[in-house]
């Protein structure tokens, strides 16, 4: 593969970025079809998420989740995935599969909802925990 890329004088990084973008676009379209979301609205939300996340956006694209370290509990990490409950990980005091669910009260695209969770965790974790329901 790298030989072929060398032949076409295409920088590997460029190909990687392009294929990541194509993959994300395909996933985004599929997500929207599955959830009934307007692709355009989700694209707007995705751009905002990318803007606010900065360098961490590529990490999110690559892994499919974002980990946010708790500020209240030193050994807790919240794992956030698109349109999924928040996984509470890495601590003995919570059961292994502990998940909590919180949603935006009005209809917003999945990327906006993820951003809302991130902002609440970052700025007022206690409030988010007070509102969230535990998912069995």
């Amino acid at each position: 593969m790298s030989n072929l890329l060398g032949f076409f004088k295409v920088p590997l990084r460029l190909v990687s970025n392009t294929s990541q973008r194509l993959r994300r676009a395909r996933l985004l379209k599929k997500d929207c079809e599955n959830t009934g979301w307007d692709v355009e609205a989700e694209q707007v939300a995705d751009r905002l998420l990318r803007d606010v996340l900065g360098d961490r956006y590529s990490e999110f694209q690559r892994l499919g989740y974002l980990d946010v370290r708790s500020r209240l509990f030193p050994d807790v990490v919240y794992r956030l995935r698109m349109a999924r409950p928040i996984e509470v990980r890495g601590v003995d005091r919570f059961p292994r599969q502990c998940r909590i669910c919180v949603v935006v009260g009005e209809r917003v695209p999945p990327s906006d909802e993820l951003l809302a969770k991130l902002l609440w965790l970052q700025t007022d974790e206690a409030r988010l925990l007070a509102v969230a329901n535990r998912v069995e």
Partner: protein
Amino acid sequence: MGVLRVLCALGDTKVEWDIDVEQTIREAERIFSENAARGYASFRVDDGLDKAERIDRLDPKARQILQIPQIVGG
């Protein structure tokens, strides 16, 4: 120049203000207050997520503010 982005079903709607034009600031403040009264939470995100902060009033010096409808247990 600052921008207030209000999250909605379309992604978000933008309200921009110019710190040198009082009228644009007042309009942004009006929209900010209306949303806050409806329970929207406001976050200043000038420098990305890590330095995000919750705010109660619009600071005209802010570069980017997000307003998000209130969260509920799912």
